[in-house]
């Protein structure tokens, strides 16, 4: 109860403290959500990793089909799709608007192409490389192209971003502890007389510290709510733009906000950090002000 009294009395200082704490909690949460959304947005691309196999021009459609059946039986291959030269030309004709120009060609210049999708388990670099060389070894194959470079780069960037989010979270957690600690330290000092009397009549250190710990935890909880407000606000502000951007890329992707579980975790982290900061600060201050060591 007396921790609520604290809040009421130092309204402005308290407001500033919890706002700073809220911002500090919001930043890593926002980063984490950014990373997760990028993951989700590019999740489909990881299945886009594949091999484009260009067959030699003289390979017939029938032997191409045999090759498809052979490759599809490999354990590291999820699916093989044959795009015949005819299909490819047809597609080119309808999509490129070059129909008339293509009609002047005497024969189809396009090769038969196989699109191989590896199984998810075979998506790491050495196994992809092994698959690539195995496929190249077939006499029908002219060249193999591995469409993965930009995906691996992007994954590396995501991993990096995730690390940055963690490091930021760590640093800002220290910041939160420092901010709470400082505020609690001032409150402990402003109540030095009360603490001294309480200890004089036999109040234990735990009894004296309790209201400060509750205050710290309460600050943390409110900071967590503020952080949630900030992130949720940013989410709502950005969602339409992201949806439009995704639509422009022909994707239906919705920006995901924080989940209930993440919010609960955020609140727990806020409470924990507030408590910890208050515990550190009050332990120091109360030990310093305690009567009794001769």
């Amino acid at each position, binding site marked *: 109860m007396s921790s609520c009294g604290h809040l009421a009395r130092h309204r402005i200082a308290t407001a500033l403290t919890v706002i700073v704490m809220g911002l500090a909690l919001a930043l890593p949460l926002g980063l984490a959500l950014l990373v997760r959304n990028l993951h989700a947005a590019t999740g489909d691309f990881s299945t886009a990793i594949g091999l484009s196999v260009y067959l030699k021009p003289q390979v017939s459609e029938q032997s191409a089909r045999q090759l498809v059946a052979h490759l599809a039986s490999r354990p590291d291959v999820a699916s093989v799709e044959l795009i015949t030269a005819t299909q490819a030309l047809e597609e080119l004709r309808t999509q490129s608007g070059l129909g008339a120009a293509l009609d002047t060609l005497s024969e189809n210049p396009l090769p038969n192409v196989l699109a191989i999708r590896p199984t998810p388990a075979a998506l790491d670099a050495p196994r992809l490389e092994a698959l690539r060389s195995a496929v190249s070894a077939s006499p029908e194959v002219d060249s193999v192209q591995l469409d993965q470079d930009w995906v691996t780069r992007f994954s590396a960037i995501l991993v990096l971003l995730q690390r940055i989010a963690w490091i930021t979270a760590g640093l800002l957690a220290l910041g939160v502890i420092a901010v709470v600690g400082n505020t609690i330290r001032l409150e402990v000092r402003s109540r030095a*007389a*009360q603490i*001294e*009397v*309480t*200890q*004089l*009549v*036999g*109040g*234990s*250190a735990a*009894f004296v510290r309790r209201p400060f710990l509750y205050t710290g935890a309460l600050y943390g909880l409110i900071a967590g709510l503020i952080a949630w407000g900030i992130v949720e606000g940013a989410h709502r502000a950005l969602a339409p733009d992201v949806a439009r951007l995704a639509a422009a890329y022909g994707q239906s992707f919705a920006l995901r906000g924080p989940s209930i579980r993440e919010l609960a975790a955020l609140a727990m982290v806020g409470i924990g950090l507030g408590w910890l900061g208050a515990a550190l600060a009050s332990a120091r201050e109360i030990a310093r002000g305690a*009567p*009794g*060591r*001769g």
Partner: protein
Amino acid sequence: MIRFERVTKRYPNGRLALSELSFEVGEGEMVFLTGRSGAGKSTVLKLIALLERPTRGLVEVAGQNTATLPARRVPLFRRRLGIVLQDHRLLMDRPVFDNVALPLMVADTSLKEINKRVRAALDQVGLLGRERVAPLELSVGEQQRVGIARAIVSKPPLLVADEPTGNLDATLAAEVMGLFQRFNEVGVTVVVATHDQSLVRASGRRQIVLEAQP
């Protein structure tokens, strides 16, 4: 109840407050600590209340050697002790009730029990009915009596007071002294530090005279 054996206390700033002091206070006794200011009266009380520890010598309170009491047990030790200070140390932002209830609250006493005991303590110092008043609305004498009520509310077997009448006129001082004698009559061991010889003589109790250290 209290035993000092060749107790020396030197403060960290180098000041020698007590040197080789020995005395005993029996259970149920009421004694005065006298001596000129600077003779170490407050130091003796601080050693009894474990606000300070002796530099050398033995301080035993209620059979407990204070030197061997670990810090975490100090609060429990102080709960069996009533302390009255000259500047009563009341919490000015809390009503009388809260001030008197503090020793019970730190000991996790039930609210019902707190209510009962606080009223009993205030009754004993003649302040029943003033529970909701802020200390600043009380006279100096009344404030001192609130401090005394706080010291006795947990019914400690030992009551120590440091210049409890220092800020009071003769009538009020005699009144406060009368309170201490009444507690003593019901079995509480009382140690009062004072420089007021007339009060000591009027009470007819034993006095321990401290010599100022050079």
